């Protein structure tokens, strides 16, 4: 049983408790600085670039990301790093060098507000509504995943048994505890609090995972030992990428670089207010431009921290003491594994990764051919439990908890800003005093947390709801980047065109999903619910191509309709469109501080990393 393994001692509890005390303490310490709505929602636009930079990647580094990347590392190997190297760095460079001057310089307080300045009210309303709904759901998903993980790892079991409380309450306890802590520190310190805690989480993740990789690598005989014990495809990120059928991701290089590297990644890093809000909180436009570039450096190295543990988990000789008969934590798909005995999930596992067990029947789950499925989501948690003795185990678990909570917090602060500025101030109560909006922001935080809790409980009842929601989000997000790209770099783009393009892009994504199906899937939630006209080798390929279709539809329609509608007069677009805005001056900065030079350095590093791990 897992419960026998996670014997947390006083020292582990102490470390966890210290973290909670500091997190709330930071909130209390910041409370006296929260005098205006600008302090609360935008951190007073006064934070240094390095803090915002680390918060920029931390906002994205929720625990689902950490656990998902570890799982993906165990499943696909180092090719997972494409999600970082292709799927993040180029977009981060682009947003820093080219787009940030418009976000920061336009004085917009949120991304939807930028859309109103550049286009019109309806485009902003559409974006603000869909974004607000998404943040609340994402925060709820984070909450649900955390409560399930705490339940599965039996973190609180011994505590509950000691206090004579029913173990069945642990799920509720985890939800309520995380809600109270996140609510507490955002209510008190607003965005500053959320950003500070994201930075704290960044360092905790590094402090918790660096020794994990070190000990793990030492145990499997270093990088060479790891390479020797895994198939070659695991340690080479580009092998077999010319054809979708010869690499583990099931995607060819064009789909990968266009779908992930361009549409999805630029759509996320360049337009999602969840990450952009941290850059907009910095103290000057120069800092704001440096924020994503500073963030790109650790982001580039993060595969070694979060993906490598997945590979080590597969390569670790045997599942010595980690028998388990628990339900899987998250709903990740797993790959088949050949096996002959279908009763013991430990024996059927691979390295530290056990076979997946059906939570209802308690039996090992198998694919169509009778092979056991692996529960890859347990890669990271099992690594922590396997390699960490008590003491540092407390640190590792704290890092994981911290990333769940800061994932929630980023969503909640994005929600309260968009709700208060873009919906409440714009459509409900227009001309109230600043103190009123500050108060509204605080209550929006409470509302956001309550809605997150409702989402978390909805996920318990209807497991499919999570998959469905994520699918819907992907339809809404996929076309977004085309709108921003045209809006910022083509002065002819009109509001009617942007709005129509955006909506049609989403419709195109839905239609594409309804007409295609990944191999081995049945028509339904995975696609093909209209009729199947094309099969993709993997779900990932289908996702990438859905995004490509959505983006292209939006792009083409926006251009056509722009030509048919009347553009805004040029003087109104100064500061919003590239060709009409004075270029940022860089020559007074030291050479190493100039955004363009940093960008060139980053690209060079990216090329070197890809060559090393090709």
């Amino acid at each position: 049983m897992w419960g026998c393994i996670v014997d947390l001692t006083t020292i582990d509890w102490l470390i966890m408790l210290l973290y909670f005390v500091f997190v709330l303490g930071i909130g209390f310490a910041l409370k006296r600085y929260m005098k205006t709505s600008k302090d609360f929602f935008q951190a007073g636009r006064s934070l240094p670039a390095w803090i915002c930079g680390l918060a920029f990647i931390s906002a994205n580094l929720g625990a689902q990301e950490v656990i998902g990347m570890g799982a993906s590392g165990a499943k696909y190997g180092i090719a997972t790093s494409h999600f970082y190297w292709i799927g993040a760095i180029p977009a981060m460079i682009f947003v820093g060098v080219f787009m940030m001057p418009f976000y920061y310089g336009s004085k917009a307080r949120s991304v939807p507000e930028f859309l109103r300045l550049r286009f019109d009210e309806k485009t902003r309303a559409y974006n603000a509504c869909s974004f607000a709904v998404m943040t609340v759901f994402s925060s709820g998903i984070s909450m649900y995943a955390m409560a399930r993980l705490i339940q599965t790892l039996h973190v609180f079991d011994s505590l509950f048994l000691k206090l004579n409380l029913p173990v069945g309450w642990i799920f509720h306890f985890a939800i309520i505890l995380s809600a109270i802590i996140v609510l507490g520190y955002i209510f008190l310190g607003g965005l500053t609090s959320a950003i500070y805690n994201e930075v704290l989480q960044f360092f905790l993740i590094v402090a918790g995972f660096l020794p994990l990789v070190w000990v793990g690598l030492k145990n499997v005989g270093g990088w060479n030992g790891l390479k020797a014990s895994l198939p070659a495809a695991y340690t080479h990120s580009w092998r077999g990428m010319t054809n979708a059928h010869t690499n583990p991701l099931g995607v060819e290089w064009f789909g990968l670089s266009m779908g992930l590297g361009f549409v999805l990644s630029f759509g996320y890093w360049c337009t999602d207010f969840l990450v952009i809000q941290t850059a907009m909180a910095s103290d000057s436009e120069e800092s704001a431009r440096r924020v994503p570039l500073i963030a790109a450096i650790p982001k580039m190295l993060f595969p070694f921290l979060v993906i490598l543990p997945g590979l080590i988990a597969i390569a670790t000789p045997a599942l010595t003491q980690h028998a388990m008969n628990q339900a899987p934590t998250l709903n990740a798909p797993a790959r088949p594994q050949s096996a002959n005995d279908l009763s013991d999930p430990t024996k059927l596992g691979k390295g530290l990764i056990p076979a997946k067990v059906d939570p209802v029947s308690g039996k090992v789950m198998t694919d169509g051919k009778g092979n056991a499925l692996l529960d890859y989501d347990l890669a990271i948690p099992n690594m922590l439990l396997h390699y960490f003795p008590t003491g540092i185990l407390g640190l590792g678990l704290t890092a994981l908890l911290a990333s769940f909570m800061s994932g929630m917090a980023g969503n909640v602060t994005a929600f309260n800003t968009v709700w208060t500025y873009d919906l409440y101030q714009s459509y409900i109560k227009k001309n109230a005093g600043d103190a009123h909006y500050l108060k509204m922001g605080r209550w929006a935080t409470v509302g956001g947390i309550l809605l997150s809790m409702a989402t978390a409980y909805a996920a318990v009842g209807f497991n499919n709801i999570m998959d469905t929601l994520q699918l819907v989000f992907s339809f809404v997000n996929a076309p977004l980047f085309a709108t921003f790209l045209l809006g910022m770099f083509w002065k002819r783009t009109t509001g009617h065109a942007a709005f129509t393009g955006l909506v049609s892009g989403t419709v195109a994504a839905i239609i594409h999903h309804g007409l295609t199906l990944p191999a081995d899937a049945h028509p339904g939630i995975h696609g093909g619910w209209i009729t199947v006209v094309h099969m993709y080798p993997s779900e990932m390929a289908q996702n990438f191509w859905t995004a490509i279709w959505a983006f292209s539809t939006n792009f083409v329609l926006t251009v056509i309709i722009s030509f048919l509608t009347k553009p805004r007069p040029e003087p109104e677009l100064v500061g919003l469109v590239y060709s009409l805005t004075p270029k940022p001056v860089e020559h007074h900065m030291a050479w190493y501080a100039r955004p363009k030079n940093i960008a060139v350095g980053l690209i060079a590093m990216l090329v070197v990393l890809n060559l090393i791990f090709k």
Partner: protein
Amino acid sequence: MNLDLRIPMGLLFTIVGVIMSLYGFFTRGSVIYERSAGMDINLIWGVVMLVFGTTMFTLGRRADKRPRTQPAEGTSRPMGHGGH
């Protein structure tokens, strides 16, 4: 404005570092370290955390004592015509 993050963060890492390294020191050679490839990971990593924490704390305190010379707020981009 504001509280310098390095102060509370430095403090947290220092305290956790002290706890871990003390615990590691008193559990030297314990069987619990079979998990971590025989290394006393609590002592080693505790010291690393301690050094990181005190460095952060010191940097934060030093910056906090120094008065600010220029206003930190707003954009410093020299705008041409039609700016703000």
